[in-house]
């Protein structure tokens, strides 16, 4: 189980091979990679030239570890990994990686999706986009709140 906050790139194949190496109990590896992209339909047609991700060092690691602990409490994960990058990115650059290992595919899929949904609303990162008109801070999305909300436990 690991959380990494870094500016460097990552390779899903390398991480996945490292985590499964020598194991005989893993049946399912689900992964998600979030990538910077050019178009943002919410904000009109102006293409994104680049984006900068700012974060809150210290709190970011704490929050990602808390999110990971929640996933481990909810599902029988054999291992998982969250890598979130910060810095300046151009369209096509990978930004976030979530990898989950389990015996069974449904567990791996659910935990991977949960981690991404929670991370979107609970990890202290902020996106600034550069377009031809200048730089602007991206507003949070209601759809991300709704996606995180669907994992709330019935009280």
């Amino acid at each position, binding site marked *: 189980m690991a959380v990494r906050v870094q500016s460097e790139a990552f390779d899903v194949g390398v991480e996945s091979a490292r985590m499964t190496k020598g194991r005989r109990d893993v049946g399912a590896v689900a992964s998600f990679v*979030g990538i910077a992209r050019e178009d943002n339909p919410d904000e009109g047609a102006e293409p994104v030239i680049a984006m900068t*991700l*700012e*974060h*809150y060092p*210290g*709190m970011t690691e*704490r929050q990602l570890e808390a999110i990971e602990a929640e996933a481990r409490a909810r599902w029988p994960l054999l291992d998982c990994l969250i890598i*979130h990058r910060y810095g300046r990115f151009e369209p096509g650059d990978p*930004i*976030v990686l979530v990898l989950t290992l389990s015996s069974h595919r449904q567990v791996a899929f659910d935990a991977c999706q949960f981690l*991404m949904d929670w*991370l*979107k*609303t*609970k*990890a*202290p*990162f*902020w*996106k*600034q986009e550069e377009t031809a008109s200048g730089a602007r*801070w*991206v*507003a*949070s*999305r209601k759809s*991300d709140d709704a996606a995180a909300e669907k994992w709330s436990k019935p009280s």
Partner: protein
Amino acid sequence: MKILYFAWLRTEIGLAEESASPPASIKTAGALIDWLAALSPGHAAAFEKRDSIRVAIDQEFAELDSCLSGASEVAFFPPVTGG
């Protein structure tokens, strides 16, 4: 007490971090906002968008009515947009 600003709060106030010694009467994050807003026109302008401001006390998400007692680090920022 260390105060941190992120995203547009940082750019509007023009500071990533500052030290503050609010009086003992400032007991909540919301009260701290009112106190900080009086420090400069930049602070005042940034803190005006109160509905768009989130707070963390000692690196944990908190509410505007959360108690500051014993806090050594308070951060203000907009809703997060990572991932």
